[in-house]
C-alpha cells in the first residue's frame, strides 16, 4: 500500500518538475503533499500528517499560486 | 546564579534584543522608539559580553556540560560550554557588535535589519555551544535563514541572486545533513554527542562501520558548504560582495568559522574514544587538510584577478578560511588553538577591510579597483584603517596577521603545506598592493576616471568608531599575541602555546621583507599586459548555479568513495 502511494508521490513530483505550465505543477505538488500526509497517517504519525497537510498542501500552494500570479505562468 | 542559567541567558539575550526591536517597530513617537532601539542593541549585543566575562573563571577550570532544562539525558538536548565555545562566543559578539555599530551610520537602519542581525548572533552562540546533532541542524538553519535575508537587504539585483544561490546550495546541504543525522540515529539510537560516542563503541559489524562512516561524510560535506572550502566555495564571493558592508564583515568574520569549530567539537569527541571509526576520521581530516591548503592558494589566485574591490576581499576570506581549515584539520589541541587564533584575527582584520573598503567605494560611487583613485581624500580614518587592515592580512610584523600566520606555518613546518601556504601569502601581499591602488594620488598622465574634484569626506561617528576600534584591536592583538595564544591554549586544553615565544627574531623579520619583495614582484607581473590578459580571463569565469551543485556532488562523491573503498 505504501509503495503504491510512494510511486504516486514520485510521479507527482516528476510531473511538477517537468511540466510546461507552472499552475498544473503547483497542483501536482500540493497533491503529492496530500498523498504524503496520507502516508504519514498510515504510518501512525498523526502529528506529522496534520502538519504536512496544513503546511504542505495549504500554505505552500497559496505561496506558489501567489508567485505565479505575480510572475509568469508558463515555463520558457 | 547557577552557571547553566548564565550560559542559557547569554545565548538567549540576543533574542530579547530582537524582540525589543520588533516592539520599537510598532512604536509611533520617535524618541521613545530610539530609546527602545538603543536598549535592544545594548541588551542584545553588549550585555552578553559582560556575562561572558563572568563565565570566564568557571570555564577556565572545566567545561560545563548540562542538558537544557535538566531533562533526561536520553532525550534531552545536551550543551557543552567549554573553552572553545567561550572563545567562539567572544569572537562572535565582538565582531557582531562592532559591525552593528557601523550599520548605525552607514548600513541599513530599519528595525527588521537589526532584529535579523540579532537573531543571527543568537544562532552563532547557540551553534558554538550545542552538543546535540539535531540541535546543531536547527542552529545551522537559523544561521542560514538569517544570513540569506540579511544578504538580500542591500537591495541590489545581484544580492537577490547571490542570496538565492547561497540558499539553494545550503538547503540541499542541510537535507543531506539530515540524512547524516538519520544514519547515525538509526545505528546509535541517540542524538547527543556523548550518547553517540557511548553507543558507537558497540559497533562491530562491517555494515555499521560503513553506515556511520557515510553519515559522517554527509555531515562533514554539509558543514563544508557553510565553511566554503575548496570544492563548494562558489557561493561565497557573490554573497559577500553584494551584501551590505556590515553583513559581509560578520559573514566573513564569524559566520564561516563557527560551523567549522562546531563540527570539530563533534568529530574530535568521537575520535577520542572510538578506535573502529578512527581510520575513517584520519582520512576525512587528511582530505580536509589537503583541500584547505589548496583553497588558500586557489582563492588567492582568483582574488588577484578580480577588478571589483569587495569581490577581491571575499575571495580573500575563502583563502584565509583555507588557512584556518588546514590548521584545524591537524586536530591536536595546539592546532585548534592556532586555528582559533587565526580565525579571531581574521574576523578583526577582514571586518576592518570590508568596512573601510565599503565606505570608500560608496563614497567613490564605483567599485572598480582600476578606476578609483585619490581615495585618501575621503578622510584620514578610512585610509589609515584600510592600511592597518591590509598590513595585518599580509602578515606585517606589529599587526595581528603576522602572529597568527606564524603560528599556522609553525604547525606545518617542513611539509608541503608550508610551501603552498607561503605561496598563498605572497599572493595576499600582491592583491593587497593592488587593492591599495585606490588610495594612490592621481598621476597627471593617467586618464582614469577619478573623483578628485568632489571628494566626499566620510563622516558619521559610529562609522569612524567601528573603524578605529577594529584598527586598535588589530594592533593590540598583534602586540599581545603570546598572551592571547596562552589564553586560547589554556582554554582549549593544550599545554603548548600556539604562538612561539620568540616572535620577532631576526630571521622572521628577514622572511617578512622577502615576502614583501616577492609580493611586489608578483603585483608588477599581474599588472603587466600579459598578466592583465590572464587575470581578465580568470575574472570573467563566474561560478554558475549548476556549477555550485556539481561541485557539491563532486565533494560528497569523493569523500564517500574514500570511505567505501576503505571497506
Amino acid at each position, binding site marked *: 500500500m*505504501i*509503495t503504491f502511494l*510512494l510511486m504516486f*508521490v*514520485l510521479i507527482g*513530483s*516528476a510531473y*511538477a*518538475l517537468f511540466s510546461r505550465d*507552472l499552475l498544473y*505543477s503547483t497542483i501536482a505538488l500540493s497533491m*503529492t503533499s496530500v498523498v*504524503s500526509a496520507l*502516508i*504519514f497517517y498510515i*504510518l*501512525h*504519525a*498523526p*502529528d*506529522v500528517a496534520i*502538519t*504536512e497537510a496544513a*503546511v*504542505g498542501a495549504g*500554505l*505552500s500552494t497559496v505561496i*506558489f499560486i501567489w*508567485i*505565479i500570479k*505575480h*510572475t509568469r505562468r508558463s*515555463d520558457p | 546564579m547557577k552557571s547553566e542559567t548564565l550560559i542559557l541567558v547569554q545565548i538567549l539575550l540576543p533574542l530579547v534584543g530582537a524582540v525589543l526591536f520588533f516592539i520599537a517597530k510598532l512604536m509611533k513617537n520617535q524618541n521613545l522608539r530610539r530609546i527602545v532601539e538603543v536598549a535592544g542593541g545594548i541588551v542584545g549585543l553588549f550585555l552578553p559580553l559582560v556575562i561572558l566575562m563572568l563565565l570566564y573563571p568557571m570555564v577556565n577550570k572545566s567545561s560545563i556540560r548540562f542538558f537544557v532544562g535538566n531533562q533526561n539525558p536520553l*532525550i534531552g538536548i545536551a550543551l557543552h560550554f567549554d573553552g572553545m565555545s567561550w572563545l567562539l562566543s567572544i569572537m562572535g559578539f565582538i565582531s557582531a557588535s562592532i559591525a552593528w555599530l557601523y550599520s548605525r551610520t552607514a548600513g541599513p537602519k530599519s528595525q527588521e535589519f537589526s532584529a535579523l542581525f540579532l537573531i543571527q548572533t543568537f544562532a552563532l552562540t547557540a551553534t558554538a555551544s550545542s552538543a546535540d546533532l*539535531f540541535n546543531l541542524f*536547527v542552529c545551522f*538553519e537559523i544561521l542560514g*535563514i538569517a544570513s*540569506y*535575508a540579511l544578504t*538580500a537587504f542591500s537591495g541590489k*539585483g545581484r544580492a*537577490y*541572486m547571490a*542570496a538565492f544561490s547561497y*540558499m*539553494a546550495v545550503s*538547503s*540541499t546541504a542541510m*537535507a543531506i545533513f*539530515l*540524512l547524516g*543525522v*538519520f544514519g547515525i*540515529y538509526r545505528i546509535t539510537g541517540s542524538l547527543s554527542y556523548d550518547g553517540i560516542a557511548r553507543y558507537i563503541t558497540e559497533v562491530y559489524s562491517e555494515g555499521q562501520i560503513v553506515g556511520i562512516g557515510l553519515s559522517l561524510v554527509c555531515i562533514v560535506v554539509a558543514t563544508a558548504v557553510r565553511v566554503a572550502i575548496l570544492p563548494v566555495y562558489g557561493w561565497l564571493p557573490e554573497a559577500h560582495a553584494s551584501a551590505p558592508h556590515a553583513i559581509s564583515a560578520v559573514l566573513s568574520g564569524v559566520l564561516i568559522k563557527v560551523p567549522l569549530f562546531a563540527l570539530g567539537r563533534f568529530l574530535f569527541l568521537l575520535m577520542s574514544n572510538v578506535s573502529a571509526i578512527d581510520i575513517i576520521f584520519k582520512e576525512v581530516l587528511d582530505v580536509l587538510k589537503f583541500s584547505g591548503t589548496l583553497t588558500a592558494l586557489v582563492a588567492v589566485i582568483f582574488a588577484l584577478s578580480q577588478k*571589483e574591490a569587495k569581490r577581491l576581499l571575499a575571495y580573500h576570506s575563502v583563502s584565509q578560511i583555507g588557512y584556518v581549515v588546514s590548521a584545524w584539520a591537524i586536530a591536536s589541541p595546539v592546532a585548534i588553538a592556532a586555528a582559533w587564533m587565526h580565525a579571531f584575527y581574521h574576523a578583526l582584520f577582514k571586518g576592518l577591510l570590508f568596512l573601510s573598503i565599503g565606505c570608500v567605494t560608496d563614497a567613490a560611487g564605483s567599485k572598480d579597483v582600476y578606476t578609483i583613485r585619490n581615495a585618501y581624500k575621503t578622510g584620514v580614518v578610512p585610509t589609515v584603517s584600510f592600511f592597518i587592515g591590509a598590513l595585518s592580512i599580509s602578515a606585517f610584523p606589529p599587526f595581528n596577521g603576522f602572529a597568527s600566520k606564524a603560528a599556522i606555518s609553525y604547525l606545518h613546518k617542513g611539509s608541503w603545506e608550508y610551501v603552498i601556504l607561503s605561496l598563498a601569502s605572497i599572493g595576499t601581499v600582491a592583491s593587497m598592493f593592488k587593492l591599495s591602488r585606490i588610495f594612490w594620488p592621481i598621476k597627471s598622465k593617467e586618464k582614469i576616471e577619478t573623483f578628485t574634484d568632489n571628494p566626499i569626506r566620510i563622516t558619521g561617528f559610529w562609522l569612524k568608531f567601528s573603524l578605529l576600534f577594529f584598527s586598535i584591536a588589530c594592533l593590540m592583538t598583534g602586540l599581545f599575541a603570546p598572551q592571547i595564544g596562552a589564553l586560547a591554549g589554556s582554554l582549549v586544553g593544550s599545554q603548548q602555546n600556539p604562538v612561539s615565544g620568540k616572535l620577532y627574531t631576526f630571521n622572521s623579520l628577514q622572511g617578512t621583507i622577502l615576502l614583501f619583495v616577492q609580493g611586489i614582484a608578483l603585483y608588477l607581473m599581474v599588472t603587466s599586459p600579459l598578466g592583465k590578459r590572464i587575470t581578465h580571463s580568470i575574472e570573467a569565469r*563566474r561560478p554558475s*548555479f*549548476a556549477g555550485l*551543485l556539481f561541485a557539491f556532488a563532486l565533494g560528497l562523491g569523493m569523500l564517500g568513495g574514500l570511505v567505501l573503498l576503505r571497506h
Partner: protein
Amino acid sequence: MMINRILLLGLFLLGFYGLMVQRNMVKKVFALSIQNSAVVLLFILEGGSIGSHAPIVTEGQTEYVDPIPQALMLTAIVVGICVTALALALVYRLYQKYETLDVEEIQRKANNEE
C-alpha cells in the same frame, strides 16, 4: 521494505536533479521542497518500523511507533516551508528587477550590469 527506500532515494535524487537542471527559478524552489519532503518521508517510514500504534499513551498498549523522528520531522517540515517562502520572495524581487525567471539570463544581466 527495500523498494520503499529505493523510491525515496529516487525522490531525493529527482529533487537534486531538478534543482540543478531546471532553468526556471520557481521550479528550483519546487525541487527544494521535494528534497525536503523526501527526507521527511524517509525518517517517518523508518521510524515506524518498530511499532504498530500512534504514540498516544493509552492503557495496556506498548507497541508504539518511535516518537523521536516524528518530533524531529515537525521541525524539518516547518524549516522547509520557511526556506520556500523566503526563496519565493527572492524570486519575486528578481522578477521585478530582471523581468525573467530564467537563471542564466538573470546571471548574465547581473554580470554585465556591474
